C-alpha cells in the first residue's frame, strides 16, 4: 500500500475505524472527571475539583478489605489454574492424539459455558460440599474458570518446543519428572505465566459466580462495586474505576513490553 496519500475509500475506512476506537476508549475516561466532583451524586465538577471520594476510598476499611479479598482469591486461583492447566497441557501433548485431544477439549469447556450456568450449578454443589462463602470455595471456582486459558497458552508454547530435547534428557538417564522439569519447564513457563495472568484478570473481575457463592465472609472488590452501583450510584465508584483503569493501562503496556521481550528471548509471542 502506498503511504502518505489515501484514496477517499481508504480515508472513509480509517476515519470510521478511529471513530469506533474512540467509542471503545473514550467512555472509559468519563470516570476521571466524575471522580473529582465535590458532590455526593454522579456529576461533573463545575469549577471546583475535590479528592473527597479518593479519601473515602482510602479511609473506608471495607474497601481495603475487599481489595485484599480479591487479591487473595485471584492470586490463589491463578496459581491453582497454572498448576492444573500446565500439567494437563503437557500430559495431553504427549498422550496419543485422540485421548489427549479429548481431555484437552474437556479442559476447555469452562471457556465457553456462560457464567450464569456454572454459577447456578456450583451454588448447589458447593452447598453440599460445605464450600459456600469460603475462600477455598471461591478459589476453586475461579481456578476452574482459569484452567482453559492456561491450557491454551501452554499448548501454544509446547507446539514450539523441540521434543528431541526431552528425549535427549531421558536417554541420558533423566527420570520422566526430571526430564520435564529440566527441559520442558524452562521453555514453556512464559506460556504458563501468560495463561496465569489471564486467569488472574478473570478472577479479579468476576461477579456472577461471586454473587452466587459468597455472602458475607468473602466480599470481593467486584461484589463491593456491584452493590455500590445497585444501592446508591456514588462518585466513589468512579474513583475506584479510575484506579482500576490506570492499573489496566499499566498491565496492557507491560504486556506489550513482555511480548517484545519474549519474542526476542523465546522466538514466539506468548
Amino acid at each position, binding site marked *: *500500500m502506498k503511504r502518505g496519500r489515501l*484514496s477517499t*475509500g481508504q480515508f472513509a*475506512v*480509517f476515519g*470510521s*475505524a478511529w471513530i*469506533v*476506537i474512540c*467509542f*471503545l*476508549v473514550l*467512555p*472509559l475516561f*468519563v470516570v476521571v472527571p466524575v471522580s473529582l466532583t465535590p458532590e455526593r451524586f*454522579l*456529576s461533573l465538577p463545575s469549577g471546583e475539583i475535590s479528592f473527597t471520594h479518593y479519601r473515602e476510598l482510602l479511609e473506608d476499611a471495607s474497601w481495603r478489605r475487599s481489595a485484599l479479598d480479591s487479591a487473595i482469591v485471584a492470586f490463589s486461583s491463578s496459581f491453582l489454574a497454572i498448576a*492444573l492447566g500446565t*500439567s*494437563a497441557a*503437557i*500430559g*495431553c501433548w*504427549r498422550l496419543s492424539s485422540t485421548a*489427549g485431544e479429548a*481431555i*484437552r477439549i*474437556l*479442559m*476447555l469447556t*469452562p*471457556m*465457553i459455558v*456462560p*457464567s*450464569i*450456568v*456454572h454459577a*447456578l*450449578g456450583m*451454588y*448447589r*454443589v458447593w452447598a453440599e460440599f460445605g464450600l459456600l462463602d469460603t475462600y477455598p470455595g471461591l478459589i*476453586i471456582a475461579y481456578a*476452574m474458570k482459569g484452567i482453559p486459558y492456561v491450557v491454551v*497458552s501452554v499448548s*501454544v508454547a509446547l*507446539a514450539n518446543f523441540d521434543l528431541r530435547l526431552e528425549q535427549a534428557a*531421558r536417554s541420558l538417564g533423566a527420570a*520422566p*519428572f526430571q526430564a520435564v522439569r529440566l527441559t520442558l519447564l524452562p521453555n514453556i513457563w512464559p506460556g504458563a505465566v501468560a495463561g496465569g495472568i489471564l486467569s488472574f484478570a478473570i478472577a479479579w*473481575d468476576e*461477579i*456472577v459466580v461471586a*454473587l452466587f457463592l459468597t455472602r458475607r465472609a468473602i466480599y470481593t472488590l467486584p461484589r463491593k*462495586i456491584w452493590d455500590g*452501583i445497585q444501592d446508591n450510584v456514588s462518585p466513589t465508584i468512579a474513583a475506584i*474505576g479510575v484506579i*482500576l483503569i490506570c492499573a489496566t493501562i499499566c498491565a*496492557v503496556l507491560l504486556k506489550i513490553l513482555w511480548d517484545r521481550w519474549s519474542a526476542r528471548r523465546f522466538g514466539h509471542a506468548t
Partner: protein
Amino acid sequence: MRSTSETEGLTVYLAMALIPACVLCIFYIYPLLRILIISFTEPSVGFGNYVDIASSSVIRKVIGTTLWICSLSTLVALFFGYLLSYAILHASPGWQRWMVTAVLLSFWVSILIRAFAWIALLQTRGIVNEAMQSIGLTDAPVQLIRNQIGVVIGMVHYLIPTAVMPLLASMRNIDDRYVMAARGLGSSPFHAFRKIYFPLTLPGVFSAGILVFIFSIGFYVTPALLGGGRVTMLAEYIAVQVSHTLAWGQGTALAASILAMVLILLIVMARIANFKKMFGAVK
C-alpha cells in the same frame, strides 16, 4: 530396559493429564450435570419444567427480548468489528500497534466499571443528555438507560473487542494478492472488495458472529445494570428465579436450555471454521 522406561514415562504423562481432568470433572462438570438433573427432578420428576418454559408467556417474552438484543448487538458489533479489523490489518505498523493497544485496553477494563461509565454518560442528567440539550438537539432529557438502547450500547461496547480478535485472526490468513489481481484486471477498489475480499472473509465473519452471540447470550452484568430492571434478559431472569422465588426447577431448565443452545452453536461453528485456529492455534 528401554521399553519399561517408555511405559513409565507414559504413565507419568497420563497422570499429568488425568489428575487435572478429574479435578475439573468434580468441581466443574459435576455442577453442570447437577443443573441438568435438577431441571428434570424438581419440583417433580419429568419434563414439567421444560413444558412450563414453552407455555409461559413471561418466559417467552424474556427469551424474545434476549434473542432480539443479542442478535442486534452481535450484528452491530460484527459490522464495527469488521471495519476495525480491516483498518488494523491495512494500517502501517506504527498505527497498527496503537489501534491494537486501544482495543486491548477497552477489552481489559473491568466490565463493571464499563457499565458504570455508561451509566454516568447516559443517565437523564448524564453527560450525553446535558450535551445534547446545550447544543439544542433536544429540549428535555432523553431516556437512554433503563431501556433497550442502553443495554445495546453497553453490550456492543463489550462485544466489539470480542469480535475483533477472531476477525483479525481469520483476515490475516487471506492472501491480498487476489484483490491485487482483481485490481490489476481493472476492477474498482470497492468492486474488488465486494467480489473478492468480502466473500473470502465470510467463514471468519460467521464464526466470529457465533462466538460473539454465544458470549452475549449469557450476559448478566451489562443488561442488569443498564437495563435497570426494565429489560430482563435470560441470565438475570434465572438469577431472580433462583434467589427470590426459589424456583430451582425452572431456573435450571432455562440454564440447561442456554447450555444446549451454546453447544448447538459451537457444533455449527466447528463445521464452518477451523476450531484450533479460533482458539489461538492449540496445536
